[in-house]
Each structure stands twice: as C-alpha cells, then as structure tokens.
C-alpha cells in the first residue's frame, strides 16, 4: 500500500472515530429518572379484602378523571397493614392523588378508587398537589383510603339526559354529574362521577360508571373558572332510588331537569 493511500485510510478512520465520539458526547441519554414527586403516608380504614390483588397510587391532572386512561399509574403498594409510606415520582405540575384497588382476577376501573387526597378537614374537596420543579419532593401528603369503598371494575352505569333551563351561573367552566350511595353523602368516595362535561349547554347526555348498588340521588356539580370542585356548587338534584343490580347493568333514562 502506498504512502498516500495509507494516509487516506488513517484519515478516514480518524474522521469516523471523531464523528462517533462527537455524536456520543452530544447525544442525550433518553429516558431518565423522575426526581420530583410527592411523599406521604397512606392510612387504611377497614379490613383488607381477602381478594385484594393490588393497590396502587395514581395521579390525575384533572378531576374527575373520566377513565383510567386519564390516570398516571404509580407503584404497587405493599399489601397489608394499617398504613404505609409512599413516594410517588411525578414530573413538576399539579396533580390530584388517589388510590386504586384491584380485585384478584379482575381489571380495575375508575370505580376502584377508594382513597382521594382531599383538602385537610374537607373530605368533599379533592386537593391539588403542586410540584414546583424537577428536584422537589413534596412531603406530608397523607391519603386516607377506606376499604368500604374498594370496588371492582364493572361496566355497569347510570345514564340519562339533563335539560338545563335558565342562565348558567357566571364563570361556569365545566360540570360533572354525580350519583351518591348516601344522601347526604359522607365523603367524596360516596360519589360516582361522570367524566368532565361542558357547561353552558341546554342539555347533556351523561354516563356515570357506577358499581352495582343502590344510589339515592343524582345531581350536577359546577366548576367555576379558577375555583376548585366543591359540593356547594351542586345545582341540580334528582332525589330518587336508583338500583344498579349487576356488574353489567346499564340503568338508562335517568333524566331530569335543572332550573337555574
């Protein structure tokens, strides 16, 4: 091999190595750990059901989440005990926190939420947890989970149409339709929610994923701009016993009118 060719080969080899090294040094490393999050204690009320498959912590950026697809699904928590510490790694942002329960050999659904992080002293107001930056672990966010509300996922529902007559309250942003197993409800977990619905409409068709059982009332709650969800914003109520008999029952035509 002549000298000129040798030099050319060396040059090519060197350039190749250089390209690879530069690419490597300037390349990001893809996925990385999430270093921010939320920490706290989960306090369990009631006895662990025998058929518990798993309990997971979940987060949602909107309330109510309309399906499990709206949830950021976190770790599986240890089964058993009265309480457990948790760390849930989340990107910076605002989140609602909850716990879902799954029955053995069953899937979970939105009805499987049996604990929600609420404002201290107000078990009806789901509270937002704010994670300010990518290095902060927000602490002290304790969640109470009550096994009395541990329900398996079913595809049963309460469905109907609501007509709105009159002017919506100023600042109405969204609404949701709720069904309650107790009247008046004792906590947020007594409620089954529709997904987020539009406000300022004349009527809406709703769908509430509802586990089998007897529901005492159906109502509409409004969320106003820059205000949290609050049961005080209840604007319509149908006081009526509604029985959802089985896992696959769809109770339809639960229609009512809301007068503003």
């Amino acid at each position, binding site marked *: 091999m002549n000298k000129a060719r040798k030099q050319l*080969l060396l040059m090519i080899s060197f350039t190749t190595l250089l390209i690879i090294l530069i*690419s490597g040094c300037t390349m990001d*490393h*893809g996925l*990385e750990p*999430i270093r921010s999050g939320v920490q706290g204690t989960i306090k369990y009320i009631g006895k662990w059901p025998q058929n518990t*498959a798993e309990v997971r912590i979940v987060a949602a950026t909107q309330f109510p989440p309309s399906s499990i697809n709206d949830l950021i699904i976190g770790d*599986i928590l240890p089964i058993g005990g009265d309480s457990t510490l948790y760390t849930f*790694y989340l990107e910076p942002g605002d989140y609602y926190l909850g716990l879902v329960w*799954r029955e053995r050999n069953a899937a979970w659904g939105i009805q499987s939420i049996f604990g929600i992080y609420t404002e201290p002293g107000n078990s009806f107001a789901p509270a937002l947890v704010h994670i300010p930056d990518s290095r902060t672990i927000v602490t002290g966010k304790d969640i109470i989970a009550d096994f009395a509300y541990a329900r398996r996922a079913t595809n049963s529902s309460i469905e109907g149409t609501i007509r709105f007559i009159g002017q919506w309250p100023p600042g109405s942003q969204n609404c949701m339709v709720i069904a309650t197993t107790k009247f008046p409800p004792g906590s947020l977990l007594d409620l089954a929610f529709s997904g987020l619905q539009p406000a300022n409409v004349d009527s809406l068709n709703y769908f509430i994923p509802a586990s089998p059982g007897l529901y005492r009332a159906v109502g509409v709650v409004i969320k106003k701009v820059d205000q949290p969800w609050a049961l005080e914003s209840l604007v319509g109520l149908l006081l009526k016993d509604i029985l959802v008999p089985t896992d696959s029952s769809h109770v339809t035509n639960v229609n009512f009118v809301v007068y503003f």
Partner: protein
Amino acid sequence: MKIINVFLLIMVAVFFPIHSIIGQTVNSYGILMGKVIDSTTGMPLPGANVMLMQTVMGASSDLNGNFKVNRIPPGTYNVKATMMGYKSKVISVEIPAGQTKSVEFRLEETVIESPTLVVTASKKAQSFQDVPNSVSLISLKEIERRNKTYLNEVLEYTPGVYMMEGDVNIRGSSGFSLGAGSRVLFLVDGIPMMPGDSGDIKWDLVPLSQIDRVEIVKGAGSALYGSHALGGVINIITKEPSPKPATTVQYSVGFYDKPYYPEWRWTTRRLNFNQFDITHSQNWNKVAMVVAGGRKESTGYQQNGFYNYYNLLGKLIYRRNSHATFTLQSNWSTGDYGEVFLWRNQNDVYEMPVPSIGDWVNSNKFSLNGVYRELVNSKFTYKIRTSYFANDFHHYHHDNNDFSKAKKLGLEAQADYFFHKRHGLTFGIEGIFDYTRSQVWGNHDAYTFAAYLQDEWRPYQNLTLTLGGRFDYHYVDTGIEDTQVNPKLGLNFRPMATTTIRASVGRGFRAPTLAEMFTETFTAGFKVIRNPYLKAESAWSYELGINQILSNQLMLDLALFHNDYKNFIEPEPDIYQTVKFVNVSNARIRGLEVTAQGAMLDRFLGFNAGYTYMDPVDRDTKQTLAYRPRHLFTAGMTLSFSIFEAGADFRYVSRLERVKVYPNDDRVAQKIWDARIGAKALGFNLAFNINNLFQYNYWQIERNIGPPRNYVFTITREL
C-alpha cells in the same frame, strides 16, 4: 381426519400424473460441467450459483469452484453464474444430446455486498434483480458482525424493520399485539414456523449460528404464502452441510454495564450472559448432515430477566440421484425465562413490581420437516413437504398458571413448470391443520386449505411480469369459516444492466389467530377477554421502486409504498384495562424507503444506510396508528484491514406518537450506537462488540426498558 385424507388424495391426483407424463417425454440428455473462478486472482469460487435461465435447472460450485448439471435436454441455453460480491455473468452454451459440455465463468469482483439469488419472493430461486418487491437480505457475514443472541436483535438493523419487543414490524405492519398474531410471516427454509395458537414468531427456534442468510420480503405476500404475510415475509435459510467434515465450536460471553443513572442501579451483581454452540457437518456420497447443539443463559439486565435455553438442530439430506433429494430437518428448543412485563416505576426501571418478582415461563418448541424435491426435466421440478411444529408454554406467574399446547401440521406440494420459453409457472396446494389444547384459549382446531398459481412472463429479456394469486379456505371448529382470494401483479424492468425498476400490487390477509379469538386470561393487571367473532384482516400493498448501481461502488434503492389495511385487528384496552382483540378500523400506511450500500478503497471502507418514512393513519379516526414510528434510520460502517475488521452501527426509531396502555408515560426516540471489532487468524474468529455504546435509555413498549450498554466477546473455531 377425513378432510386431511381428501387433501392427500388431491395432492397425489394432481402431482403424480404430471410427474409421470412430463417425465416420460425425456429420452436423451446432455451434461454441463464447469468451473467458477475469480477473474483477477484465478482462485476457485465455492458456493457460486449456476442457473440455466428459463429452466428449473442449476447447481452450486463446490470447494474447488466446480459445478455439474446433469440431465439437460439438448439445446442452447443462457447460463448465468452469480455470487455475492461478484458481478453476475451470462454465457450462451449449446448442449448436444449425449455429450458433456464444459464452461468456465470468470467472475469480476464488485465492491458491493449485494445479494444474488433470493428464494422467498417467488417461492423459488431467482436473481435479486428480477424480484418485483423490495427485498432485504441479511448475510452470514452480517449476522457474524452483529454478534447477537437472537435473530430479532439482528433484524433491527434492516431498513424498514423495527421491533416492538418480540413483535416484528416491516414498514409499520404489526404494531404491538402482545405476542398474539404477527403480520409478518416467519419461514424456516421456506416452511411456515408460527404456532397455530398464538401465531407469533419464536425467535429462539433456530440458533443464529445455524443461519446462512435471512431474506426479508416487504409488502403483502399472501398471493403465494397465505395468512400472516400481510406486511411481509421473513425467511431464514439455514446452513447447508459443508462439503468436507467440519466441526465448529462457538462460545460467547458478555456482561451488562451498570445502568446510566445511579438511581437505577439495583444490584451489585455483574449481570451477564453466555452462549455455547457446537456444530458438526458431514458429507458422504449420497447423504449429508448437520447436527448442532447449544445452550444460552443469562441473568438478564432486569430483575427477573433471566433465561436459560437449550437447543438441538439436525439436518439430513439424502440425494436419491443427481436430480432428486430428500431433506429432513428438525429443531428443538427448550428453556425457562423470567417474565418481565412492566417495570416498577420510572425510578426503578430495571426492577419489577414486587408481586411479579419470581414469575417465570417454561417454553418448548419442536419442529420436524421433510421435503422431497425432484427435477423431472429441464422444464419441470416439484417438491412435496410435510411439516410439524409443536409449541407449548406454561406460565408460573403469581396471578396465573396459564398453559397451552399447540401443534401445527402442514402439507404442501409445489411445482415449477416452464411451459414456454418465456413463461414460468409456479403452482401448488397446501393444507394446514392447527390443534390447540389450552387453558388460556380453550381447545380448538382450525383448518386451512389453499391453492396458488403464479406465472412469470418474460416478454423481453429485460422485462418480467408476474401475475398470480392464491385461494385460501380457513375453518375454525366453532363454525367460523372464511375464504380469501389474494391476487398479485408484479413488474420488473431493467432498462440498463445497472438499473432495475420494479412495481407491484398485491393483496394480503391474516386470519385471526386462536389466541386473538379465544384468549381468556388475566396477567400483570390486564384482563384479556375473548372475541370469537373476529374477522380476517386484509391489505392491498402497492410499491414502486428503483435500484441503481453506480460505478460499481454504490447501490442505491428507492421505494415508494402504500398499504391499505381493512378490518385491522388490534388489542384494544378499554377504560377498565380489559383488553380485547377487535377489528378496529381501516388503516393506511404509506411512505418511502431509501437505502444505500457501498464500498470504497478496495473494500477498506464499507457502508450502508437506510431511511424509511411512514405515514401510518387510522382512516376512521384520522389518528396516527399506535406503536408506529414515523421515521426509521439505520447506518453502518465497516473498516477492513488485513485480518482485522472494525465498525460501528447506528439505528434510530422516532418517538412513538401514539401508544395505548400508558399514554401519559414519558416517550423518547431510540438512538442506539453499537461498535464492533473482529479478527480472523490461525483458524480462530474473534469478535468483540459493544452494544448501546452511549448508554441510551429507551423502551419499545411501555414500561419495558431496553438493555443498557453491554459487551460481548465471541470466539469461533473450526476444528
């Protein structure tokens, strides 16, 4: 059983009369002998293919470059010699009756490692330049360079091909189907090797050390192959017995580097893998054989990611005479592996959720195939093959103990007949019986009967038109039946020796697998429910391509493709995390693919690159199809000097725009660099590879981290 008997009778009725009629017309033959040598060095070229064009006759050159073709009817033939790395050459030869004619091929070396013969696109050997579809070939050299454990890891470097864990995608065909049904047909030596229940690909069935080359045909191939060949066909060609007795021993050892981020470091153990293979090949007068055995084991790079496999392979070839051979081949693979389904969380990506730790699977596969080939005369050849493939698994999971045993029986008769000097017919019939006894999808049987016919018409020397189609009847024991007709039209035009223009249109289909129809299980938090009313999915594939060789140093290929899918079968998780396979929608995937391959400076520098752009759209919802990237890019470079070879490879898969299970999780593109160095000396072949050189962290399916940087050292010795 009655149906099978009827099918056998049809096969006998169709093939044996043809055999006897055509066989009786031959009464006097000539012989063609010769040698294939390198035009520069004069050295013999073993393994070159010599074909008598427009006939079914041909031979391969032996260790000394010699070849011999017997039983040639008198006449003048164009004889073509091809070999990878050399320019093809055609010589016109007159063969007189009862005489032996000699010819010498002096092949000129080309710097492009382009394939020469392919056998998959038309179910018979044909020149790479004559194929109307896009075909990629993975050569033995490339397999050795990659230094991987499984074939799916090698396929990732092929333009237009990407993996979603075990699911292979050709130009976005498959997406992710939880291992229940592939839109790519998987063949071993031309024989379908997909279990009758899950219909997925078992990558451990054939060890990499036994693969001679892999052909990947892109686009619908059901006109010849039937179900599954919707997005393409992957055909593994296993090694033939060597002409002289040879024993090869190969040992690989490797280990995984620590995860890039300290938060992810979960063990102080040195995570490792190793593999041992031994192959013996022997050739007697009429019988040749290969036997191989191997073991591979790994701790895995994730918690619970271990595997431990054993495999055996046997291939026996009996040459009844110069024109009839019988090949018996068997593969067996057994092993256990840890089930790794989802990571614990993004801060513990190499660890499993606590309940899943200890979940494992026992898996066994066995195949036995017999193929009888006979060259009846210069115009007619046929083969009859029987195949048996058994696949069983047993889950030992904390939340299920699913098991399944599936058996697939296949019977096929195929013939190639040049009924006119410009027309070559390929036709055949095929029967498949699937038998499943399973706790996951119940006990079911399914039957498929098919007939196919293809005419390759060469109106001019540089123009080939292909017209064909296949009829399939599919029946499942629940009473569901389906008939499919899949036509195909192809064009191949060579305006110049260095330019090939190709165009094809074809229909493909895939009958739903028993797993997709009847799965009833619960695993890793997902409930899968049955859908016995699934319909077959189908696709029309259109392709236009051009292949250009520039100054003998660079080969460029451009393909435009458009695939229209109907009744797409996809796993659809609902709002309750319950998964059901449903005919979701009609979809369209169109795009373009550009590949380049070349070498410079007396082969000192070899390079290849491929870019695929895809536009995968759900035609009903107008959304991007889930689990389909928009851009794929691969590039590789090899520097060869004396006994040494060094190289680097890069592959890029763009960020998935849509996923179904965890849409809120972080998603990144795949950007992986690999580096390699090898040497051949004193009968040893040494290879050292660093995979994922720059520790790029990615997943192919949600919550399943890809391997960190790992180092592999392989030593191969032929005894």
